[in-house]
């Protein structure tokens, strides 16, 4: 393999895909490199592994469908991240409506997936995180779990850099307050 092709494959692992690649190849490469991390990001946002997988798969399908229309293939990962954050937000919004109108009793026998959710909930920080407003939670997860820069967070959340700064600062202070209250 020539050096340029080697670099193209490595670049794909970092989220930018050569423009001449077809949707199938790009999706396969991006899946291999980023699926697990994106599912974890979504799971931290929606607190449900199955829904997180669903959200990420839908994002991949949306990218597959609009691959030809994607203006900048260098930003494939950024597009995926943004899609995951938006869909997670929609899921949470929908969940609020469903919970309000038809409260469902929790399942009696815990499944394996339920076990993962329980383990997620065991962390005091994650528990406290879910008491924050959605935007602050997204900003904190993208900043501290995904290690994104302010500009990348702004792009993923669809807000300005200033708003990212304020959400992060407010989120941190709220999180500190919640954790101190629990202690």
């Amino acid at each position, binding site marked *: 393999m*020539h*050096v*340029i092709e*080697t*670099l193209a494959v*490595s*670049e794909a*692992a*970092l989220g930018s895909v050569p423009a001449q690649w077809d949707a199938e190849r790009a*999706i*396969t490469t991006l*899946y291999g490199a980023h*699926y*697990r991390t994106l*599912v*974890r*990001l979504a*799971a*931290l946002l929606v607190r449900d*592994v199955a829904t*997180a*997988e669903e959200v*990420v*798969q839908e994002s*991949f*399908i949306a990218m*597959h*469908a*609009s691959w030809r229309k994607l203006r900048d293939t260098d930003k494939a990962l950024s597009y995926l991240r943004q899609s995951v954050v938006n869909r997670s937000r929609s899921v949470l919004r929908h969940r609020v409506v469903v919970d309000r109108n038809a409260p469902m009793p929790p399942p009696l026998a815990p499944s394996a997936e339920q076990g*993962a959710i329980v*383990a*997620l909930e065991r*962390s*005091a*920080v*994650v528990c406290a*995180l879910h008491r924050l407003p959605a935007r602050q939670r997204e900003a*904190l*997860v993208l900043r*501290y*779990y995904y*290690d994104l820069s302010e500009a990348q967070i702004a792009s993923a959340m669809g807000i300005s850099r200033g708003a990212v700064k304020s959400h992060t600062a407010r989120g*941190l202070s709220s*999180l*500190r307050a919640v954790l101190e209250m629990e202690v």
Partner: protein
Amino acid sequence: MTEPDRKFEEEIRRALYAAGDLVVPAGDGLNKIRERAARQPPAPGWFAARVARLPRQLARGAGVAASEIAATTRGYSSLGPLRASVRRWPGQARHALRTPGMWLRPALATAAALLLVIGVTLSIPRLRATVGAQLDSAFGNSSGHSPGGALGGHMPSSGSHRASAPVSCRQQYETWEHGPVQDSMGSLRAVLKTIPADRKSGNAAGVRSGMRELVPAALGLASHPLPPCVDPAGLYDTFVTRVYTAGSGARSAKAAGAVLRAAASLNQVTKLGRQLAAEINRVLAKN
């Protein structure tokens, strides 16, 4: 940022990583994506929307056309001035040809300026080489995609005797050295100079930002390969790959320790760079 703030941030980071590590996605995700992508309707939503709007747009277009025809028959068409100006074009063109004073001077001035630019370009060797290289890549003799091709990789041109004059290895190297690779090489040199100093002083942020510069520099170098005659062993490719690997390692590193470890691999890059320089000097001394 104060020390307690930093500690609190580290605590959040650790908790999120620990919580994230508990999530293990099922292994059949890609199959599910493929299946669901295949089930997607072939016509995208925007196309369906366009089709739905088409009858209304056609009706509106027909209405406009009908009102225009009606206005034309009554002599009030809004296209009247346009048609009149189109009818005047041949007359205006004939008038312009009959009076050379209108166009001769600007044409002569343009030609003189063009000749001056070409003359200046050809009189400066470096500029001539750059233009030659650009022409080469524009006419499909691109070095980025066919290094070592039928013509033996780079064939820097020199004006009009591009096809006839054979280009020596040294000339090829000089063209490459003074070409667009200069920018990437300059930024790489600067990074290789600053990172060791930052590493020594324990400035992890400085090292991280320096290491991030390596990936674009490597991509820049990769798109301008060294002429194969200068580097028969292909050391340049290895060098570029190492630079890239070091940069991408630092880009994906989350902890400061990992960034510093990635920076440590730059020693090998520097060593390889020296080897490459020695190899180039050896080859050029023979030519």
